[in-house]
């Protein structure tokens, strides 16, 4: 499956599970997926400046009955911890974070590795259900995390590594 096909399949599976409102902060790994979001007329998609802002906008959309997904790089988890706790967890806001895993095997930039190593533990420490995905065939499982966030009544994270896009 080509990277473009993976991105199409991922969006199709997220939409099939009810996701209809997307925000993103850029990442090289997510570039193709973000283009896929930009070209889809059936969803609401907005680029935002920072993950916390994205969480705020997703919260507003959730309060209006939408099903939001935040698309972001794992480095953004570091800026998001407080708001994930005091907004996402405290108000039990169900939404999915689709997180690219920079700093994992395949990574060419050393500066990405410390956060790449910490991200899963950080999310687990604040009790955000977190799942790692490495295969292009995982898009269905990732899509199923949209309703799972409602079942779990809170934020849920899917972390997608280089192999998910066949990028190494």
């Amino acid at each position, binding site marked *: 499956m080509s990277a473009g096909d993976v991105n199409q399949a991922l969006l199709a599976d997220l939409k099939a599970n009810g996701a209809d409102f997307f925000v993103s902060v850029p990442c090289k790994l997510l570039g193709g997926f973000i283009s896929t979001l930009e070209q889809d007329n059936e969803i*609401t998609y*907005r680029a*935002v*400046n*920072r993950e*916390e*802002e*994205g*969480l*705020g*906008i*997703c*919260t*507003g*959309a*959730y*309060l*209006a*009955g*939408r099903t939001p997904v935040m698309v972001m790089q794992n480095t953004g988890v570091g800026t998001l911890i*407080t*708001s994930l*706790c*005091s*907004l996402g967890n*405290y*108000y*039990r*806001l169900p939404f999915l974070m689709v997180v690219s895993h920079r700093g994992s095997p395949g990574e060419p930039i050393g500066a990405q590795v410390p956060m790449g190593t910490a991200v899963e533990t950080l999310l687990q420490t604040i009790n955000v259900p977190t799942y790692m995905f490495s295969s292009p065939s995982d898009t269905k499982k990732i899509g199923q995390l949209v309703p799972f966030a409602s079942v779990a009544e809170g934020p849920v994270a899917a972390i997608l590594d280089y192999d998910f896009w066949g990028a190494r």
Partner: protein
Amino acid sequence: MRRYELLQSIAPLLTDEFVICNLGFPSQELYSIRDTDHHFYMLGSMGLSSSIGLGLAMEIDNTVISIDGDGSVLMNLGTLSTIALEDRKNFILLIVDNGSYGSTGDQPTHTAKGTSLAAIAKAAGIASSVEVAGVDAAEKLAECLKTPGPHVIVAKVEPGSPALTPIPLSSLAIRDRFRDAVKQART
């Protein structure tokens, strides 16, 4: 005039608008003056009242008012550019600027030393961005409620808060009654 008196002055203007209120002290003040299911009291996540209001305004026709603080807006300045690009006619950001971090002991913020949030909002692309004295805020808000936004009102007030108690609502109660009220307004 302090924030409390400012909130007293604007409360009579609120009817079917949805209000996102920033942090504990301002939320306690608004709750004690007027409480309805159209209020979302955002008790943590400092800086995100503006962004939550924007996300809501994208999805509903009612006017959305985010009540924010100067210290909080300084923590999330980037969202002013998103508010400008989004260009929602039904969104008002009311920044109650007391030049201090009121919840933590009134340490001065940078607006107390010359930073103009109205000028920053205007430079971000929100044409209707004005600074007014606190006593004039209600008149300005009434005007903004009648004209297409987005609007940013920076209302200058004195620091200080009355002694109040925490809002006796759980986070889930705040969430659910607000979400239900939005749902009703949409049908």
